[in-house]
């Protein structure tokens, strides 16, 4: 082989290598292609959970989990309304995702090892730190679970909540009286009637229950939790680029709150912000959207149309909603919570 031929071969190989690198940068994404072809995102949501996923009087789906579907649609298609919802029950959620009927699940699903590993699904981050907590009367003065010394707690007999609460107090040598009821509804009714000082359940459930009490304003939901049930959006295995889109839209919503970008100031921020990270997030610099195969204003659209994480939280489950949940753990890591995002670099 002559030097010349060798050089030509080398150049060809080099060109091929560059091509392969380019192709790797934009790996094929059947899911994104399918979304673009049909013109909407297929999102699996809870069939009815106050604050997280429900249809309002006008028949529009709303809630924290629904907002995330909307943000994905805004990022991918430029329009938050281009989502079709598939309401799913607990049993339905996995088959619906696995069989490809939905592009993602955004549906109060706790991230666990066995789900991740055995069901062939990936969790793309945490959009709600759920955990078991307590509701007490404001007048009791109790602010955290450890304050419940000598209190009586209503629970449904044999429930996970009963076991978790009993373990928690036993391990810390805190004396409480646990009062068992047949059903959750009975336990909460007994609490409302004053038969116990507290009732325990997950944060989201407690928020829904509080509205049903006679005078919701007189009750406090503790922000400290005694169990760890992080929840977030889920995708199928395969199609790495689509998984990255889901993961980074969630990160982007949290980053926007951290960086002070809101749906109100996002135009101004994109035009005038000096912060390099904000400019990359909003597509003014860096071309991050293009690296995912999206338009560079992907996060700009999501934030403009849906809002940053904090805006979405307050509107759906927080102070701006009937549920009135505190941020608690779902506050940014810089403000006393554990909500975290990776940097846009």
């Amino acid at each position, binding site marked *: 082989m002559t030097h010349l031929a060798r050089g030509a071969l080398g150049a060809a190989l080099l060109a091929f290598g560059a091509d392969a690198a380019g192709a790797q940068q934009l790996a094929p994404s059947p899911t994104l292609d399918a979304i673009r072809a049909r013109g909407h995102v297929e999102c699996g949501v809870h069939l009815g959970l106050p604050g997280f996923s429900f249809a*309002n009087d006008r028949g529009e789906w709303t809630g924290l989990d629904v907002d995330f579907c909307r943000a994905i649609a805004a990022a991918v298609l430029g329009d938050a309304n281009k989502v079709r919802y598939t309401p799913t029950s607990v049993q339905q959620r996995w088959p619906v995702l696995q069989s490809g009927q939905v592009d993602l699940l955004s549906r109060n699903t706790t991230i666990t090892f066995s789900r991740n590993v055995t069901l062939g699904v990936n969790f793309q981050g945490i959009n709600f730190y759920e955990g078991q907590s307590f509701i007490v009367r404001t007048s009791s003065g109790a602010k955290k679970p450890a304050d419940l010394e000598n209190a009586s707690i209503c629970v449904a007999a044999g429930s996970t909540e009963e076991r978790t609460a009993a373990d928690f107090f036993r391990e810390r040598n805190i004396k409480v009286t646990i009062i068992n009821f047949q059903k959750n509804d009975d336990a909460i009714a007994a609490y409302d009637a004053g038969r116990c000082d507290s009732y325990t359940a997950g944060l989201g459930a407690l928020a829904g229950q509080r509205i049903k009490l006679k005078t919701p304003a007189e009750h406090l939901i503790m922000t400290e939790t005694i169990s760890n049930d992080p929840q977030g959006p889920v995708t199928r295995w395969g199609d790495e680029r689509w998984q990255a889109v889901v993961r980074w839209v969630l990160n982007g919503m949290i980053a926007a709150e951290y960086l002070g970008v809101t749906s109100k100031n996002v135009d101004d921020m994109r035009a005038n912000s000096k912060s390099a990270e904000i400019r990359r997030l909003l597509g003014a610099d860096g071309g991050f959207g293009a690296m995912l195969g999206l338009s560079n204003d992907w996060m700009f659209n999501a934030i403009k149309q849906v809002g940053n994480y904090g805006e979405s939280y307050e509107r759906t489950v927080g102070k701006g909603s009937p549920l009135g949940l505190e941020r608690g753990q779902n506050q940014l890591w810089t403000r006393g919570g554990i909500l975290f995002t990776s940097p846009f670099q």
Partner: protein
Amino acid sequence: MTAAAIRPVRPSLLRRLRTDYFSTPLDALVSLACIAAIVAIALPLLRWAVINANFSGTTRADCTAGGACWVFIKARFGQFMYGFYPPAERWRVDLAALLLIGTVALSFWRGLPRRALTVPALWAVLLVVDAWLLAGGFGLPRVETRQWGGLMLTVFLSVYAGVLAVPLGILLALGRQSELPVIRLVATIFIEFWRGVPIITVIFLASLLLPLVMPAGWDIDRLVRALVGLAFVIAAYMAEAVRGGLQAMPKGQGEAAAASGLGYWQTTGLIVLPQALRISMPAMTNEFIALVKNTSLVSIVSIFDLLGIAQASLADPNWVGMNMEAYAFSGAVYWLICFGLSRWSRHLETSRKTTH
């Protein structure tokens, strides 16, 4: 006019009350206890549902009287009736319902010529036209089945599953009576399989398993999957109802028809079936009423029929806790439908009493 003449003189109400309910001290005691029980149940119910109920307003804040908050039903009425069907297109549902009522009326109108042919044809046309009206296409904007819901979906499932189940059920019943072993075996296996599986299982399998085993790209609408599952189960039950009618027929009918030279289809179509169906009518109506209530099982696979939409609306934080209202309302609607159907079938039975 003669009926009035021979009707026995009815004793006065007061007198009947006395003789029927208070003739002995024990009777009186039992009657009083029953009255007390009825009052104890009915009064609080009445107080909750009517006297202290809230009817006007638009939000839960308007419900201050302590009783039922019917404002909730009012705010959600459109959803309870049509689900998420786009409001601008709801006239199509209304029109489809009118066509359905018209078809039912025509089917039972004796003046219709050649009823044995025209009635099935009418229904076939109705199923096609209504499906087009509801789903759209061919000139009408498409409305996806996931937007269907509420009472409209309950009626849709009942009518379509019921109407598909009748011919299938008749064929199965005839098949089970067939003298050809293969047909008999197939019909028997089909009937026993679908009768032996709980409807919940059928709906679960249709909604969860089917999409997993179907080749990629094949996608049958999930409402259609549930509908077909329901129709198969009901067809199996209908088949047994029809078989009851077939077996109640005196053997001489078929034999006489055969002796006069009629073939199998003529004997069946002209002589046996018309009489057998008349006999099985009450049992078939029964199956249909059961079907109307069984359609509510689709709510477990997140198809929002009347019950499903009632439950789903409880998740709206603005209306959380309206369980009593939601269930009372949907229960009342189901009851109205089923009670209406059963009265109507009684009327049919008495109005067409025949002997052979």
